[in-house]
């Protein structure tokens, strides 16, 4: 058969179509959402106020800012709260609002001790649960879309959670460098470093499995993976997402001396890889051909 496996891309031809609805602005929002929520999540375990505040700021300004820039009608954005029953976007917005309130209250409480013990624990739990939802819902929002094979695999939420935790661990090592909870507890530093390496390995396997699943899911998925690994996006995906984001950063972390610059370099490499992952997975997302019916019907 000729003229198959081709990217039609908006022309009047049968073929795979590239999605263009979600681009760099959404990728930026996703980046700040998972980096900020991950940082807050890890920081809360150490009662690390600076980390929690930085996580809140990243989610509230970075993520929300990216979404506002992306929306066609940003002033109506509040309407996205109205379909929590079916829409992951609605659920995510509800979690962000709960996180903003409970997270801010918890930060104030940790700093000034203003809440009674029972309420304090409740607020901390709500903040942590909302934070966890933010860490995973973006993956669910993407995998809910059966339209795009690259996104629709069940591993997308796992990738989101892994990246969020990894971002959180690395940013905690950077923001918390020299802080008492790390400076006085070398075992905590070592624990976070080992956790980071484990998450890098797990993330690498998750991303590769995600690509493997998409490649065998459909024609669109196969083309998406080909674009990422061999085609026009390969020169970014392979060195940044796989190389810098997982392999080099893991090796550097294994050899890490107790130096701030080293931690900063590892976190920078990993975050670069993660941002590239978000942007490129959006750009490579493609729809299957609606039909190649004439051929399928007649043969």
């Amino acid at each position, binding site marked *: 058969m000729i003229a198959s496996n081709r990217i039609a891309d908006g022309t009047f031809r049968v073929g795979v179509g590239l999605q263009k609805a979600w681009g760099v602005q959404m990728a930026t929002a996703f980046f700040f959402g998972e980096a900020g929520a991950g940082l807050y999540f890890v920081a809360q375990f150490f009662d690390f106020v600076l980390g929690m505040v930085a996580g809140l700021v990243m989610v509230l300004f970075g993520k929300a800012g990216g979404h506002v820039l992306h929306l066609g009608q940003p002033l109506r954005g509040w309407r996205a709260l109205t379909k929590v029953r079916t829409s992951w976007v*609605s659920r995510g917005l509800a979690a962000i609002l709960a996180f903003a309130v409970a997270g801010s209250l918890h930060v104030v409480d940790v700093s000034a001790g203003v809440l009674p013990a029972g309420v304090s624990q409740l607020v901390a739990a709500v903040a942590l649960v909302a934070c966890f939802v933010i860490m995973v819902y973006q993956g669910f929002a993407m995998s809910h879309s059966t339209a795009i094979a690259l996104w629709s695999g069940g591993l997308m939420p796992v990738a989101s959670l892994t990246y969020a935790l990894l971002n959180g661990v690395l940013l905690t090592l950077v923001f918390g460098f020299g802080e008492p909870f790390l400076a006085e507890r070398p075992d905590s530093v070592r624990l976070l470093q080992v956790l980071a390496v484990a998450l890098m390995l797990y993330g690498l396997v998750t991303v590769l499995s995600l690509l493997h699943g998409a490649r065998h899911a459909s024609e669109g998925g196969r083309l998406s993976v080909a674009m990422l690994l061999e085609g026009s996006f390969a020169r970014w995906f392979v060195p940044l997402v796989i190389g810098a984001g997982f392999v080099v950063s893991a090796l550097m972390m294994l050899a890490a001396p107790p130096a701030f610059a080293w931690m900063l370099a590892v976190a920078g490499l990993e975050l670069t890889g993660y941002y590239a992952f978000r942007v490129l997975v959006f750009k490579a997302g493609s729809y299957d051909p609606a039909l190649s019916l004439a051929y399928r019907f007649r043969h």
Partner: protein
Amino acid sequence: MATWGMVFDLRRCIGCNACAVACKQENSLPDGVFFTKTLSEEVGEYPDVTRSYVPTICNHCEDAPCESACPTGATYTRPDGIVMVDRNKCIGCGTCIVACPYDQRTRLEPEMLHEGLFGGGRLTPFEEQGIGRFTVGTVVKCTFCHERVDAGQLPACVATCPTEARIFGDLDDPASRPRQLILERRGRQPLPEKNTNPRVFYID
């Protein structure tokens, strides 16, 4: 209450795209926006090669993923099965666009409405009379020409098709032509593996 649906007869479609032109005219669609397209494809191997045409449109799915993914309720299904977008509720997040397996939705960008078909920001009189139907930043799609259907007329693409390759009618009525064609000629839905249960069928 009828449940509207459409059948595409691939034997009859000649790829003239009169449907696409009629749709753009009926709905005053801005530059770059199509609610229906007839796609072409060459199949076979030399010397046995042929070109075939595949009309596409919003499939008004019974289990519309765009509707469940929409965070605002802007996308909804009428009792007669036509999937609509309420432009007053749409926030332009694009979630429905990435949820639609058939790539049948378009977000209206400012340049689509303001540049005009010939560019330079000057709209033709035809474009000016139609621009009030649209809101920048919201998502649009085929509505089966719901205003015409409500008035007892056929969608513009169906009425225009010179070969009667598009057949529109009530899928719940056993005597309707689309229903009979689906049964007699084994109508198939596009991408059935997506579990959307489209109300558009293809026969060959």
